[in-house]
């Protein structure tokens, strides 16, 4: 096993994933736009239940 490693080797090349955060923000925006537009299509096609 990896005996040569120290327990706290976690700080090795540690950096916050800034770029990933940007990509995820774009992704989230896309989700909201696309999901929202199909949601609106659904609303525009009317009701299926009349009490």
């Amino acid at each position, binding site marked *: 096993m990896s005996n040569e490693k120290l327990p706290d080797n976690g700080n090795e090349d540690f950096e916050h994933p800034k770029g990933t*955060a940007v990509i995820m923000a774009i992704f989230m925006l896309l989700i909201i736009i696309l999901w929202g537009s199909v949601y609106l299509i659904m609303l525009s096609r009317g*009701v299926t239940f009349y009490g």
Partner: protein
Amino acid sequence: MANKRESMHIDPYERTWIMISILMLIVFFGAITVAGLSFGVRVPDPVARVDPNNLAASGTFAEPGLKEVAPKRYEAYIVAQTWTFNPREITVPVGSIVKFYVTSKDVQHGFKLQNTNVNMQIVPGQVSSLAVKFDEPGEFDFICTEYCGIAHAAMYGKVIVVP
């Protein structure tokens, strides 16, 4: 080896991302719940069982077609079968609310009324039901959306909404 520090290693950015995702899912779920409960965009619920081999004996499907239950309120009983709907054509006045009841006498079919939210799986032995209000005059195709055999592509009918 056994006493290494255990940790989940979640980067603060990743934690934030997870929180925002969860929030988004909650908002979305709220939106569809409102659409269902308050606006009435709902999915089918069980309404009845029938014997697919003997639809004539099951009352409502003995004579498929349109029944007026109140002014401008109709019930449409439709039998799906390879490879047609019975009846294939329904005429209603504009402003009508039509509740569809559809079943199959053979294999599974689909029933999708174009440009509305009526979209149902048709399963032998079961009755699928959703309603729609026709606010504009025109023609609305209902098409079979489930593979039901070699001529499935030809299986459709229409609702004619007259002024």
